């Protein structure tokens, strides 16, 4: 009858570490699966980028914060660039049967860009940059490091606050259906 209470909390540790070694068998055995706060031996995105001290963690926090802010700014900048470059508006009308057998003319308005124009190419390049940065932010959040996750969230909030402020004042008073 040697049931110690100390065996109970230790019970789930072997199972989680077993699932770690199964899941992380492709090289990186130190993958965390829950949130933790720490700054020792934190690998960030690239193989040479390892955080070992508090100073390096502070630098990484600032860099991730600025990256998340840049991502929000890039989203707003792409929207305003798209709106500015949409100059070609095509109207085409087509007859549509209405009530009581009458025929109504329904007008469709299409806004668009040409495929090989410079604004569209610029939009494509910015889109690629936006996709890459969004995947980087996802991978940073996937390290499960509490400090870095807070940096991502705070950077996104600050970027939204700073860049969307200007956009909301200038744009939305003129366009109701946004």
């Amino acid at each position, binding site marked *: 009858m040697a049931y110690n209470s100390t065996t109970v909390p230790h019970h*789930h540790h072997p*199972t*989680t570490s077993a*699932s770690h070694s199964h*899941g992380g068998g492709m090289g990186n055995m130190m993958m965390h*699966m*829950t*949130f933790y706060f720490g700054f020792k031996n934190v690998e960030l995105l690239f193989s040479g980028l390892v955080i070992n001290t508090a100073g390096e963690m502070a630098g990484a926090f600032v860099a991730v914060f600025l990256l998340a802010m840049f991502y929000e700014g890039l989203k707003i900048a792409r929207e305003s660039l798209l709106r500015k470059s949409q100059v070609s508006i095509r109207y085409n009308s087509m007859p549509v049967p209405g009530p009581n057998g009458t025929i109504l003319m329904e007008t469709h308005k299409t806004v668009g860009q040409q495929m090989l124009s410079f604004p569209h190419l610029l939009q494509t390049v910015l889109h690629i940059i936006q996709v890459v940065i969004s995947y980087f932010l*996802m991978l940073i*959040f*996937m390290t*499960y490091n509490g400090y870095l*996750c807070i940096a*991502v*969230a*705070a950077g*996104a*909030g*600050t970027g*939204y*606050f700073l860049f*969307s*402020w200007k956009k*909301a*004042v*200038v744009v*939305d*008073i003129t366009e*109701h259906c*946004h």
Partner: protein
Amino acid sequence: MHFIFSNEVVLLFDFWSVHSSAGMALSVLVVLLLAVLYESIKVGKAKLLYQATVGMSIPTSQLTEETDQDSSSSDSPPVSRIRLRWFFCHFGQSLIHVIQVVIGYFMMLAVMSYNTWIFFGVILGSAVGYYLAYPLLSMV
């Protein structure tokens, strides 16, 4: 790594470890409600912005005229109060945006647990949330 059907998972935090089918059902329900909340926050943010701009559409046109000229107009106290109100409204929107970003990442991490039940909960929650929330976007 591949999707598995299992009643054992550790989700997001150390204390959220599931061992039984009842615990798994509860976890799937929590994840589902989180996904519903995510979709409704997206709709809520757009509606909030629309209501804020409609609520002060006339005063904000005066606001942009004031920033063009350098002089202070005769009715500057109401304009500064409107600016303050706009600042608080936008600050609240930024907080909602932070919550939306964090919940989005939590859902990504939940799917990353590679547990099929949790994955179904996320997908079903997104579907239910979209179904319930998006009609509210066109309603004024």
